[in-house]
Every structure is written in structure tokens, then in C-alpha cells.
């Protein structure tokens, strides 16, 4: 099947590449662009480990055709920190032991970032709702929720 031209901006970097239309966004991010921070977990749309931002909205990159992201801006976990400077949320994850095995982390960070962008002072319930789809098989949800809460309370402002 004929390859098609995809124009995509990932973490503020513009790319043009030829892909088969059946390629999923997660495949293009990982296999074409080498951005392996986005994890392919269940590959069935059930675990949200592959969550990325597309034009600011959290979506599952395993459930979106890459070609549907044509012309859009994608943010992956690699796009959160500025160089070595971690975001408040990333620092809070470290302090609260919210990384654990790390596999769900990129999805969790992206989902929580989307929440905080939309609502900088979420309640605990709103945090739980925002990461509801993100499965953590270490089952360390409480530390993740505490990490997001700490940022919402302003504990990580300006520091670092």
C-alpha cells in the first residue's frame, strides 16, 4: 500500500516522513522518531501507558492512526523537561516515589500534565478521574496521586 506524507510536530520539532496509513501514532513515535519514552503497554487501548498530548489533549497513541495526527502538535514525555530541568510534576514524582517500575510513568505524567494545564488546582477526585484510565501494575496509585496533589498545592513552584 502506498506510503503517505505525514507532517507532524513532536515536542516542538517539525518532521516530514512517509508512512503507511495503517501505522499507529505510537509506532511512528517509537520506531520512526526513536522517542521510546512513550510506552507500548497493552496495545489494545486498555492501559493508557502510551498516552501523549495531541494539540494539548491526552490521547492513547496506540489508538490513533499516525496519519490522523497530520498537521498536529504532539507532546511526548521527552517533551516535558527543558533539557535537564525537570517539570514540577516530574520532580514531585521523584520526591513521592511515584515512578516505581517506571513503565506507566510516561503515561501518568502526560495525563496529569494535561489535567494541570486545564485545571491547575484539581481536587483529589479530579486527579483520580484524570488518571483513571492509566493502569499501574505496581498498584502505586496513592504515591502518584500524592505527587500530583503536591504540585496542585503549589509546593513545586519556582524551585529547582
Amino acid at each position: 500500500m502506498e506510503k503517505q506524507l505525514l507532517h507532524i510536530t513532536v515536542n516542538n520539532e517539525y518532521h516530514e516522513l512517509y508512512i503507511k496509513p495503517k501505522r499507529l501514532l505510537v509506532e511512528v513515535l517509537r520506531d520512526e522518531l526513536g522517542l521510546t519514552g512513550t510506552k507500548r503497554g497493552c496495545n489494545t487501548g486498555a492501559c493508557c501507558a502510551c498516552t501523549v498530548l495531541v494539540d494539548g489533549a491526552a490521547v492513547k497513541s496506540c489508538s490513533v492512526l499516525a496519519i490522523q495526527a497530520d498537521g498536529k502538535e504532539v507532546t511526548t514525555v521527552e517533551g516535558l523537561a527543558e533539557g535537564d530541568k525537570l517539570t514540577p510534576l516530574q520532580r514531585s514524582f521523584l520526591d513521592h516515589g511515584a515512578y516505581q517500575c517506571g513503565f506507566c510513568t510516561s503515561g501518568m505524567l502526560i495525563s496529569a500534565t494535561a489535567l494541570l494545564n486545564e485545571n491547575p488546582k484539581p481536587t483529589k477526585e479530579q486527579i483520580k478521574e484524570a488518571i483513571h484510565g492509566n493502569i499501574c501494575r505496581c498498584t502505586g496509585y496513592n504515591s502518584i496521586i500524592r505527587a500530583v496533589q503536591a504540585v496542585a498545592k503549589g509546593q513545586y513552584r519556582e524551585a529547582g
Partner: protein
Amino acid sequence: MIKDFAYFKASTVKEALDLLEEHKEDCKIICGGQSLLILMRQGLVAPKNLIDIKNVKELSHIDFNQKEGLKIGATTTHRAVEKSPVVRKHFPVLIEMEENLASVQTRNWGTIGGNLAHADPTGDPGPIFIALNARVKVSNKERERTLPLEGFFVDYFETVLEENELLLDVHLPVIPPKTAVVYEKFNIIKNDQGIVSVAVSMTASDDGLTCKDSRIVLGAAAATPIRAKQAEQLLIGQKLDDGLLEEVGLKASEESDPVPDIHATEEYRRELVKVLTKRMVKKAWNQSQTLA
């Protein structure tokens, strides 16, 4: 592994309908693809042609006016419905439905039109929309037609859409006065697809003493969302009491035609239909009383 397909992107309804006419054989429409891609990945659906309407902006809208009610375009995302102030004000039951529909990620990308056209009997919007007396507008290159959503679903993953037709929008009339609309789905994991769901609308009589009109719609209780029409009839003109509630629940359970699967047996689903119908009818009755 997804099989290869030819991909066509439409930016307008006209483009989509032209593409559909041209490639209609062995063709699927994709919008959010939150359900379709799962089936494609499993190889259960392998279209030769895929027409993408995600960028058809003219179908992404939520309009409300007091006369005509609510119109939701087919490419409107679940999340847009969930965040819509007019929906929250005039159709709060839809907010409740959206907040319990899958994950934020799915709601951000998945669409109302996609959900309906996919025709999964466990879909959330179908039963509520039918309880709200929804109509859908569909079109091919030549003509548009509107039809009640109740007649839209034919069988598992099957609708009345012809191969060259596209779903354009869903239209929910203004909720009549003294009418309560409620919905509940039963599931094991919160926000998962429903094992059974029940939507009930109930209009109280002018004096508020009896039920003037009611719709009971069952989800995941047959191959399509279905109305429990005999159960509805038991309610009309009556005052609700415990005896009648029991009868209505039993009747709805008899009218359901559940298919067993890995989630639940037929008997279990029938029992759920009874319990949820009773619960929702009672809730709708109580709410309609406060409106009366």
C-alpha cells in the same frame, strides 16, 4: 496486526460523501477510531478503503435552542459534550453518562457519531438518546434523511446506514416539562463498558399524581439497544407503588434478549435488567415528582 488499506481524508461533508460514493465497496469511515481500531487490530474488520472524517469541522458542533433542542454533530468528541455548558444545563444526564464513559483519553478523541455508527450494543449514548427521543440525520451524495435513532440500530455492529451514507448529526428534542431522564450502567470496573445499562425517561401528569409518559431503554440487553415497551405501558396513567415497580422490572426483564458473553450469562443480565429498571424507574418517578 492491522491490514493495509487505502486512506482518504475528507475536510468537508461534500468531500466525504464524494469519497464514499467512489470507494463505498469494502469501505469504513473512521473518525476517532477508538472502537474501530480495536477491531481492525484484531483483524475482525479489514476494510480496503478508509475514509477519515476526523477533520470535518462542520460536523463538530453542539447547538441548543429552546425550540428545537440539542443538535450534536457526528464528529463532536465525547469530551466536548462533557465540557459543554449548554449540555450541562439542559441535558445533565449526558454529562453523567460521559463522565462514566471510558477514560479521558478515549473521550478526548472518540466521537458521538462514531459511537452510534459503530453500533456496539454496550455503547453508552444509544440508550439515553433513545430515551430522549433522538433522531439522526444521515446523508449520501444525493439526499439527506432523518430517522428516529430507535430504528437506526439493526443488529450487532450493524445500522440502517447504506454503504454510501454518512451519519451527520443527532438531534435531541427539548425535554418536555415535568420529565426526568435517568441512566445507570452496571459494570465491574468503573467506566468500563456496561454489563447492562438502563435509561428511563418519565413525564409526570399535569397534576403530578400519575405517569403520563415513559420510555425504558435497555443497553447490552439485546443485540441492539431496545425499548421495553410493554414495561413502559404498565406505567402510563398509573401511580407508582412497590407492586407496580416489581411488575415493571419483571416485564422489562422478559422483554430483554441478552446474549451471554465472557462478562455475564444471559440469566445474570436478565436479573440486572430487572434490578436496574426498578431502580431507574423509581429514581425517574421521584425526580418527576419534584418537577411536578
